[in-house]
């Protein structure tokens, strides 16, 4: 299936290809159908579009020259990192340049004394932590696709991970960005110090989905590794009780490093897939990870165990060793591919809700699911309130795709209704443009467009993404996975 959401009239300027060939080596300008095919989608393969041309610069000067060229010719530019994004943020434009930062894959400098590292945007998330590990440091945000996703893409999406509650999102863990403006000028936002003068453009750039500038360097903050991490696995006979247990833990003043929930369909799928040792009869499980000093973790583990039992857990297991702790996580991180094994297709949603709404929202999802006749498996970053319902369907059955989309839209609108948001960590991209209309009113969307125009008056940077035009407002949209068509299906996600 291919859906092109871009509303702009096409204005192809093939001369940009020959101009690019003057700036870059021949092998760095791709324009044949066969060369373009790998770039036709990112991690959201429901949307596909081949670009006019792919440019693969390897120096900042080349990026500047490309932007100057595209600005002069008024050709739109879509930046792309590793292409693992889940909302179509790097979906190409038929008349646009796809600017791949894949060759920007160097760690430029590690500064252990200041606990920071300067890296190029194409460096993989996990490669940073691996490179700084000899200094006892790591980069905290850990999206589940971290073995493949790039730091530039993480900044563009403000990526999270399973340790956000305690350690924050990308926006909390970067210090400085070097960017190329739409006009091709080089500029910096943020600093190696903890703050910088003027407006907080570092925060604005984070999560701006390639709409405001091209990231060519990222300075990340590094954290010292805690002495010990320990995990508990608790079983519950109702999702409400599991949700209440989350509130109990946080209410007791404990901030776990990770706090994740799965419901029964998700538990069964994950257990069948990776044999994590999950209780397949439980209505819900919680995985709670605690870190810190050895002695401190021992005490907290006992406290959390008591809290979980007090909240009605039917069983609480503490990982006997690190291998078992990693096994607890393995099932969680493999939940999506696991669901992909039991259903021909699934839709993934990414709403965030206030935690106290968990019970009512899951019940309402169950009702909606029954009404439509499609099963839903739920995994939940419980600590953050970030819900990932997976809607199971079969696109070969006429009408099921539309039913799934309709159910997905209803779930996201429910998230907004209870005080949440339509996307917690996957971004809007092209996928949730419609839901943005549910969450924001006309004045708010107009203000966002004005901010875009402040950086990009001609609207050449990733046009048509992230913020819907005012006349666009329709009803639904969600991550759509068709027959394992999710790119890199072997990757753990979320």
């Amino acid at each position: 299936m291919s859906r092109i959401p871009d509303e702009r009239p096409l204005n192809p300027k093939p001369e940009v290809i020959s101009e690019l060939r003057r700036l870059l080596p021949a092998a760095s300008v791709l324009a044949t159908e066969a060369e373009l095919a790998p770039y036709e989608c990112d991690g959201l393969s429901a949307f596909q579009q081949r670009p006019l041309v792919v440019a693969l610069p390897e120096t900042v000067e080349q990026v500047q020259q490309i932007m100057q060229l595209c600005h002069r010719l008024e050709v739109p530019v879509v930046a792309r990192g590793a292409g693992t994004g889940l909302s179509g943020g790097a979906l190409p434009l038929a008349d646009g340049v796809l600017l791949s930062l894949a060759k920007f894959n160097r760690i430029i400098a590690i500064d252990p004394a200041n606990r920071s590292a300067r890296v190029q945007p194409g460096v993989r998330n996990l490669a940073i932590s691996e490179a700084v590990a000899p200094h006892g440091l790591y980069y905290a945000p850990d999206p589940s696709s971290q073995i493949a996703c790039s730091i530039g893409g993480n900044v563009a999406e403000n990526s999270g991970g399973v340790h956000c509650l305690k350690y924050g999102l990308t926006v909390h863990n970067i210090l400085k960005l070097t960017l190329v403006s739409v006009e091709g000028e080089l500029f910096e936002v943020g600093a190696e110090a903890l703050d910088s003068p003027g407006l907080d453009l570092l925060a604005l750039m984070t999560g701006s989905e390639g709409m405001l500038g091209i990231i060519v360097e990222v300075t990340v903050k590094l954290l010292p590794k805690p002495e010990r991490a320990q995990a508990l696995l608790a079983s519950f006979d109702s999702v409400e009780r599991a949700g209440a247990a989350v509130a109990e833990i946080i209410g007791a003043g404990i901030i776990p490093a990770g706090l994740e929930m799965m419901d029964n369909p998700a538990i069964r799928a994950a257990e069948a897939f990776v044999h994590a040792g999950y209780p397949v009869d439980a209505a819900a499980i919680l995985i709670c990870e605690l870190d810190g000093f050895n002695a401190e973790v021992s005490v907290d583990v006992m406290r959390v165990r008591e809290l979980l039992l007090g909240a009605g857990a039917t069983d609480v297991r503490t990982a006997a060793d690190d291998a078992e702790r990693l096994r607890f996580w393995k099932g969680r991180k493999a939940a999506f591919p696991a669901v992909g094994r039991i259903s021909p297709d699934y839709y993934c949603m990414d709403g965030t809700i206030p935690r106290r709404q968990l019970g009512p929202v899951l019940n309402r999802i169950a009702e909606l699911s029954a009404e439509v006749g499609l099963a839903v498996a739920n995994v939940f970053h419980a600590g953050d309130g970030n819900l990932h319902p997976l809607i199971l369907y079969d696109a070969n059955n006429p009408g099921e795709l539309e039913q799934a989309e309709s159910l997905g839209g209803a779930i996201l609108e429910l998230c907004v209704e209870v005080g949440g948001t339509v996307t917690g960590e996957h971004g809007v991209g092209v996928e949730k443009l419609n839901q943005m209309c549910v969450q924001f009113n006309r004045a708010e969307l107009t203000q966002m467009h004005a901010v875009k125009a402040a950086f990009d008056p001609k609207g050449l940077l990733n046009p048509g993404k992230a913020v819907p035009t005012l006349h666009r407002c329709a009803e639904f949209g969600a991550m759509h996975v068709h027959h394992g068509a999710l790119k890199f299906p072997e990757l753990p996600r979320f």
Partner: protein
Amino acid sequence: MVEHLDTTTEPAIVEQVHAARAAGSTLAIHGGKTKDFYGNPVQADAELDCSIHRGVIAYEPTELAITVRAGTPLAEVEALLAEHGQEFPFEPPHFGERATIGGMVAAGLSGPRRPYAASVRDAVLGVRMLNGKGEVMDFGGRVMKNVAGYDLSRLMVGALGVLGVLLEVSIKVMPRPPGRITLIQEQDQASALASMQRWAGQALPITGTAWLCGRLHLRVAGSEEALSETQRILGGTPVAAAEADAFWTAVREQRLECFADEQALWRVSVPPATAADVIPDVELIEWSGALRWLKTELAGVTGSAVKPRRYGASAVSAVRANDRINDAGDVDAGAIRPWAAAAGGHATLFRAGASTPRPSDGVFAPLSPVVMRLHQRLKQAFDPDGLFNLGRLY
């Protein structure tokens, strides 16, 4: 928990903005006026008092978030959080009893705990605000994770009201650690900086560092087990709890003796490992080295006699060209910004006596041309008629 809220104050503020816009007049936004000293002087025809708009809109402790109206006194909110065993992790300075939440967010200033927990900006989850067209807008939300649209709520933090009027803010809160201790060590500046760096590279529950007058103060917070383990690692002499709390409040509120005069006070924000001699003559070092305060007789460039100063191997050559110490042995204010910039940071003239002349380019470090142009365009995007706080930031 929801208070009974006065429903007339938001419309009153909106009405004043519409009236000012219609009349073509400009506004100086204020809450409790406790941070008027900070930033450049505002040129305005009238004041917009946001301190009338107060009250807690939503606070559910287990959600780790609070939503309050911008005019709510900061002290009231902190007291409410404390009742529930929670706090703002960024330990905001008040600079006066009337400090409001809106002022806290607009100034964007964080206290001693900032490098170890979060900044105001890190903790802001959402805002309700008015732009220069008088439109009420909500950005961000009340939940921890939210990537729907641009992060315009965090853009308001530290913007000093130049982009719009804050009406409500949602902020992340954290549990108050069960215990805390403060340790003192006698150390000169260079060795204190080295110690702070060494400890910052380990996962220790440090929540405050302050070096002044040859003494390094270290605050640690956490469980009993964490405190005893950390004390064993750090060493130093423990300070009585009340005395320690008073000290950290004085650091946060700038009530230490070294702040109590009319000299110009510079806030120098640098990478934490910046060597002691790169920023000489500091009074106080906080944030494990990332925040350094120093004073000068005059705030502007004096052009007075300059004498060379010796530097260690770590000094940056760019610094030397701008190095200036006047005959009295004081740092020349004109040297501070180049020093800070060479170290990878920036310097702000934080406070100065009323009669002290300000630097001609303003109290904040100048921006690069590209970034300045973006500031001007963002101002235009939010406040096209130039209604709010003209000149306060740049």
